[in-house]
């Protein structure tokens, strides 16, 4: 799980162009949206694309996004549970 979290942080930094952010700056349990990383709605769409592109996971129900993208840890957990 820790390895996946570390990998995911790198992918998010790259995909979302978070040039001033380092992996160690991202708290595993901090909110991705609002506080924490302060991501916006376009970033949410990018995260959905990232899941599909890198892990083959389609988020079929947009309402699930709120839970999946709560934090890095919830996202990693979702990947671990649904990776094909």
């Amino acid at each position, binding site marked *: 799980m820790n390895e996946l979290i570390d990998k995911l942080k790198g992918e998010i930094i790259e995909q*979302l*162009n*978070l*040039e*001033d952010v380092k992996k160690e700056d991202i708290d595993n349990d901090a909110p991705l949206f609002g506080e924490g990383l*302060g991501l916006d709605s*376009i*970033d949410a*769409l*990018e995260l959905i*694309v990232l899941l*599909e*592109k890198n892990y083959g996971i389609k988020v079929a129900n947009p309402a699930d996004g709120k839970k999946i993208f709560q934090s890095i840890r919830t996202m990693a957990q979702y990947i671990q549970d649904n990776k094909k």
Partner: protein
Amino acid sequence: MSDVNYISAFCRISSGKVNVNHSIMFTGEQDEAPPAFIKSVYKHYQLNYPKFYKMDSLCQLGFIASELLLKDNKLTEKYNKEEIAIVISNGSSSLEIDTEHQQTISDKANYFPSPAVFVYTLPNILIGEIAIRNLIKGENTFFIFDKFDAQFTAQYINSLLNSGRAESCIAGWVDFYEGNYDAFLYTVEKTQGVIRAEHTAEQLLNIYK
């Protein structure tokens, strides 16, 4: 009320140099690629805007030019948000990012268009970025020309100010395509600023050489 309007300040970013009101404020490293140069300017001035790195190169270029232009001529402190217009033009529209977007959709087997790229596939997004940053709500228009059309630009903006549709304007030319870049943004007001030039095509071409 006089119908004379003035170019009150300007910022030009081209050929590795930042020129604000006829003073070279920053020079990039020799042979620095345009995206790296633009980021160098951003870091040099410590502009610190979280959305900067999410922007495409056209918006980054125009955003920096607007920041440096307005740094010492804060229109939002002199005018209501609705009284400030933004009129920008360029020659390449958003082709740089359009091409990047096209590459993400050209292979049906590897079809992953990026929403963050797609949102920049219109040149007037640059106007939106400047408006959001400065909370400007006035008239705005983005034109596409072969080259900077001083005659049209002067006439159009003077008309906006003289008809009362705006009291001031952020105007100019911001172009970025295939390694070529050029930003020339200036402010137009009814009173003179540090640049003592009437807002005419002739004066514009004197500054934009």
